[in-house]
C-alpha cells in the first residue's frame, strides 16, 4: 500500500522538478474554492542535492530592493539540544508598498556525521522524536522564538531519508514549520533502517490564502444569468418521464392477462368447486361471478 503512494509522489516530484519555475497550487490545492480568487500561493522548491557546500551566492542579486538571507535549520535527537543541521537561503523581496516577503527558498542539508548517524539509529530503535526548529523571526533572530516541529524517527526512512517541509510564512516571519515524511506513516511504525544515509528533501512555502468573498446578490437571483442563458432542464428519457404511468399500465395489463388465463380454468373447474372459489375470489372478480 505504501509503495504506490510513494511512487506517485516521486513521479509527481519528477514532473515538477522537470518544469522550470513551477508555480502552481496543484499539489496541495486541487480544488479551487467557489467564488474565491485564488492566487498562486505556494512555491514548490527545487530540491538541492544534499551536499556540505553552501549554495552559491550572488545568483539572485538582480535587484536592489532584494536582499538575501540565510536561515539556519537546527535539529535535535530526542530530548537533546538543538544544533545546526541545514540552511535555507531565501531572497527577501521588498514590495512597492513596503511589505516584505520571502521568496526563492533554497535548501542545503548537511548529511549526517557518524555520531549523528548513531544517534539517529538509536532514535529509530526507540521510536523517538526527531525534532527540528527554525527561528520565527528571520530578519533579526532573537534566539528565543523558534518554531518547532517533530516527527517520529521511524517515519523518515524509505530508500534514503525522505523529508518534507511545509513552511508557513507571514511576511518575513515564519509562523510554523510542518515537518514529516512525504507519504504515509501508519501506526504501528515498523523499525527500518535507510539504505542510504542521505536526505531527499522537499520544501513547500505556504502563504495564507484569501477567503472567498461573500456572494452579494441583487434582488432577483435568477435574473443574474441573463435572458438567453437560462439553462434548459436536461432532457430525460421517455421512461424517466412517464414511469409512474407505465408501471400501473403494465400491472393492469398483467392483471388482465392472468384473469384471461384464469377464465378458461375457472369455467372448467367451475362446476365442481364453485362455492369455495367464490368465497375466496370475492374481491377481484365480481364481474365473473355475476355472470
Amino acid at each position: 500500500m505504501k509503495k504506490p503512494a510513494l511512487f506517485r509522489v516521486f513521479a509527481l516530484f519528477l514532473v515538477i522538478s522537470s518544469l522550470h519555475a513551477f508555480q502552481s497550487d496543484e499539489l496541495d490545492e486541487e480544488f479551487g474554492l467557489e467564488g474565491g480568487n485564488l492566487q498562486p500561493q505556494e512555491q514548490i522548491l527545487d530540491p538541492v542535492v544534499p551536499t556540505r557546500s553552501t549554495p552559491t551566492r550572488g545568483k539572485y542579486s538582480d535587484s536592489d530592493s532584494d536582499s538575501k538571507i540565510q536561515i539556519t535549520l537546527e535539529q535535535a535527537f530526542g530530548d537533546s539540544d538543538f544544533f545546526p543541521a541545514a540552511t535555507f537561503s531565501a531572497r527577501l523581496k521588498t514590495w512597492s508598498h513596503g511589505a516584505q516577503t520571502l521568496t526563492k527558498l533554497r535548501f542545503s542539508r548537511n548529511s549526517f556525521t557518524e555520531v549523528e548517524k548513531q544517534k539517529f539509529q538509536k532514535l529509530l530503535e526507540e521510536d523517538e522524536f526527531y525534532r527540528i526548529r527554525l527561528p520565527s523571526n528571520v530578519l533579526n533572530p532573537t534566539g528565543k522564538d523558534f518554531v518547532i516541529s517533530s516527527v517520529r524517527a521511524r517515519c523518515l526512512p524509505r530508500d534514503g531519508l525522505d523529508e518534507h517541509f511545509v513552511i508557513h510564512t507571514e511576511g518575513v516571519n515564519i509562523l510554523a514549520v510542518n515537518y514529516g515524511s512525504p507519504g504515509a506513516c501508519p501506526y504501528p511504525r515498523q523499525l527500518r533502517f535507510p539504505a542510504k544515509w542521505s536526505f531527499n528533501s522537499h520544501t513547500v512555502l505556504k502563504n495564507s490564502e484569501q477567503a472567498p468573498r461573500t456572494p452579494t446578490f441583487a434582488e432577483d437571483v435568477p435574473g443574474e444569468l441573463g435572458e438567453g442563458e437560462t439553462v434548459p432542464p436536461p432532457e430525460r428519457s421517455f421512461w424517466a418521464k412517464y414511469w409512474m404511468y407505465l408501471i400501473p399500465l403494465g400491472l393492469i395489463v398483467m392483471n388482465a392477462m392472468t384473469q384471461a388465463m384464469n377464465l378458461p380454468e375457472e369455467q372448467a373447474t367451475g362446476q365442481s368447486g364453485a362455492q369455495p372459489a367464490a368465497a375466496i375470489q370475492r374481491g377481484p372478480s365480481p364481474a365473473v361471478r355475476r355472470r
Partner: protein
Amino acid sequence: MAMAIRSFLIFLFILSLTVPTFSLHEDQVGLMDWHQKYIGKVKHAVFQTQKTGRKRVLVSTEENVIASLDLRHGEIFWRHVLGANDAIDGIDTAMTKYAITLSSGGSILRAWNLPDGQMVWECFLQGPSDSKSLLFVPTSSKVDKDNTILVFGKGSLHAVSSIHGEIVWKIDFPSESFEVQEVIQHHDGNTIYVVGFVGSSQFDVYQINAKNGELLKHNSATIDGGFSGEVSLVSTAKLVVLNAARSTLLTISFQRGEISFQKTYISDLVEDFSGMAVILPSKLTGLFAVKTSTATAFISVSSEGKLEVVDKIMHATFISNALSISEDQQAFALVWHSDNEIHLNVKQVHDWNSDLLKERIKLDQQRGLVHKGKVVWSREDGLASIIGVTTSELPVEKEGVSVAKVELNLFEWLKGHMLKVKGSLMLASAEDVAAIQGMRLKSSEKSKMIRDHNGFRKLLIVLTKSGKLFALHTGDGQIVWSLLLNSLRQTEACKNPTGINVFQWQVPHHHAMDENPSVLVVGRCGTGTDALGIFSYIDTYTGKELKYFGLDHSVAQVIPLPLTDSTEQRLHLLIDANGQAHLYPRAPEAVSIFQRELSNIYWYSVEADKGLIKGHGLKSNCAGEAADNYCFGTRELWSIVFPSESEKIISTVTRKSNEVVHTQAKVIADQDVMYKYISKNLLFVATVSPKASGDIGSATPGESQLVVYVVDTVSGRILHRMTHHGSQGPVHAVFSENWIVYHYFNLRAHRYEMTVIEIYDQSRADNKDVLKLVLGKHNLSSPISSYSRPEVTTKSQSYYFTHSIKAIAVTSTAKGITSRHLLIGTIGDQVLAMDKRFFDPRRSVNPTQSEKEEGILPLTDSLPIIPQSYVTHSLKVEGLRGIVTVPAKLESNTLVFTYGVDLFFTRLAPSRTYDSLTEDFSYALLLITIVALVVAIFVTWVLSEKKDLSDKWR
C-alpha cells in the same frame, strides 16, 4: 354505507398522522422545556421603608442585574440585566418612586420606575478622569419635591435632577487626584459637604451650595503619617480613618468646615493588638467596627470624640447599614460565620445590649430573609453564575412498575385518552382543552427519579462560581440536591478557592445497578494558574462529597483521557504550570493502563498573550522533588509562533471529545463520494491583527484582518489557513465532524458574517472504484496516523448574518445520524436553531436537479432567520453565556441546556422524531380506529354476504 365508514376512518387516520410537530405550537410550551429566572449574587440592597404599597427590596447583583423583589415571598417583580461591562456601582431610591442606578464606573445614571421597572430617564456623565464613583441621594421630607441626585464619578461631582435626569450643575475639583469619600447633607438641606482625600496625606472638605453648585468654602489639612483607604462616617461631621501603618485611629471632625484631628492608638482600646487593623465599611451613627488579626472590635464614638470599645467578636464579621424601625430608632445587623453556621444578630444602633434577633443558620449559599427567627424565603441565586456543566444518568429502576399503580389509574388513563381523542377530533370544549393542557404539564412521567428508555431524564450537574454544586432534573428543572463543596471553602491553607470545572469521574455501565456515578470538581486556591489545585469527588445520586483533598501542584489544564480503569473511573491528566503531567486517580492500576498508551498521548497549550501554540508529548516519570509514580514529564514537540505585530489569538475551538460521527463518507449529487476528514485532534484558531482586537469600529478595514487556521494538535501541521481581509472579531466558532462554522464582523460590508469550512480527505478519494473495493485494493481499512502527510481539501463559503451572537453550539445525538442544527445564542438572549444545510459550502445559485434532490439549498447571500426556529420561543435567557447539548438515548432527540443569569432547558428533534411516536400520540384513537375498522370489515362482510345471497336467489 360501508364506503362512507371506510372513508371516514381513513380520514380519521390521516388526521391522526398530521398531529406530529413541525414547530412548537402554543399549547406545547412548557411540555419539554423549562425556564428559571435568577438574579445572581447581591452586591447592594435598598429596602423601601414607606408604609404603603407592597413591600419590596431593590437589589443589584454581581451579574449586573437590578431587580425588585417581593419582600414577603422573594419573587421577582421586575429586573433588568445591564450589559456585561456595565457594572453597577450604586443603587438608591429617589422621590420614593424611582430606583436610581449608577453604573459603568460612575458614567451612566439611570432612573427606573419602581412599580413596574420601566426606565424613566438615563443620563451620561463625563469627567476628566476615571475615579471611584459614589451615588448620594439626599433625603427629603416632601415626596414630590424635585431633589437633586449627587453623583461623584469620572473625577467630578454632578448634581442631577431626579425628575428629568438633567445635569443641574457640575463641579470639577481643582486637584485632579481628589477622591471623594463621603457626601454629607447639612441639616438645612441647602449646603452639602464633600469630604475626601488628595493623595494619601491631605484631607479636604468642600462646602457647596446644593442649589447651584457654588463652591462656598474649601478647607484642607495634612495628616502626618498619612492614612489608609477605609473611611467610616460616624456622624454628619465626623469621620474615622486609620493611619498608614494601620495602627492608629484618627477621628476627623469638620464642624462648619473647620478640620480637627484626634488620635487614638488601637492598642489602647484593644488589648493584645498587633499587626494591621481594618475598618469595616459601615454607616452607623456613633458606631464603627475595626477588624484586627484576632477579633472584630465595635467601637462607639461619643459626641466629644471619645472612643470606647463596646464589644468584641472573635470572627470575621459583616455589618449592615442601619434601617429605621420606628420614628427614632435604627437597627442594624451583624453577620458572621463560624464552623458550619451563619450567625445573624440584629441590634439597635444606640443600645448595643439590646438584641432584637439572634439567629443561627446552617451554612448554605442561599439568599434569604429571616423573619421573626425563621427563614421566610430563600432563592438559589448561585445558579445565575454557572461555570461548569456536566450530566449524569439517573438510577436504573430496580423493580418493575407496580401493576396496582397502573390499575388504579386505569380509569384516569382512559379518561385522559378520551380527552385527547376529543382534542384531536376538535370536539373538545374550552374546559376540555384546559384539562388536556393541565394534564400534559403535570405529567409526572417527566420528573420521575429513574432512568427512562429514551434517555430524556437526566441530572444536570452544574458548578457555580460560589463553589456550590447543584443537580437539576432535566424533566422540570427542580433542584434534586445542592451541595456547598467543603473543598471550595475558604481555609487557612486555601485563601481564595475557585472552581475550574466539573468532569465526569465515574460512569458505571457494568455495575449500573449497585454503583453510583460520580463527578469530579477541580478547583484552585486563588486566581492565578500557579495556585495549588483542589480535587473533589461527588456522588451524583446522593449529593455527598465522597472525598476531597488539596493537590501539591497547580492546575493549568485538565485533560479527561479516553481510558477507564476496572472500576470505570475515568483517567484524568492534570497539567501543572511547570508543564508536568499528573495522573489521577492515583492508583497503580491507572498507571499501568496509562503506561501502555504513554507514547500516544499528546496535548497542546495555547498562550494567547504571547501568540504561541505549543504541542507536547509525554516522557517517562518526571524528575525533581515532586517525583512520584503519577507524575510525568512533558516535552515540546511543535510550536506555532504568531508574529506579535500582525496577529493576536482571539479564539480557539476544538471538537467535543465525545462527539459521535455516523458516517465518514458523504455521497454527493453525481453519485460521487467525498470522504470527511475526521480527526479528533483538530484545533481551530482565529487571530486578528492587534489593532483590530478592540471593539468594532476601532480599526479601519485596511488595517484589520482575520486569519483562521486549522491545526492538527498531534503533529502541529497547519491543514488550512485563510485570511479574511477587512474583518475583525469577536469570533465565535463551533467545530463538529469535519466542519467549522464561525461568526465575525466584516468591516467592509458593515455586517456580521458566518463562514463555514468543510475539510475533506483526498487520500481516500480514489476509493471509488468498485472493482478495487471488491478486490480489496483500497485503503479504507488502513490505520490513519497524524504523522502521515494529510491530503486534505477544504471547501468554504461565507454568508451574512443579521445578529451579533453570544454563544454558538451544535446539537449532538447518540449515534450522529440525525442531521445537525446549529444553536446560536443571539444578542437578544434567545437561542436560534439553524439547519446545517444553510451552512453548506456547496450551495450554488442554481443547484442542478440532482443537487436539489440531495437537499442543497439555492445560494443566498445572507442566512434566513425564521422566527419559528427560535428554540426559546417567547422566553429570554437573560445574560446568556453558554449552550450545552447532550444526546438523549433516542437518536432523533437532543437535550439543550442554556445558561446565563437564567436557565433554560429544552429537548430538540432536529430531523423531527422519526424514530418514535410523539408523546401526545393518542393510543386510544389508534385503538378505536382499529376496532372500528374490524367492525366495519365484519359489517361489510355480512352486508356483502346478504347481497350475494340475494343475487343468487334472483
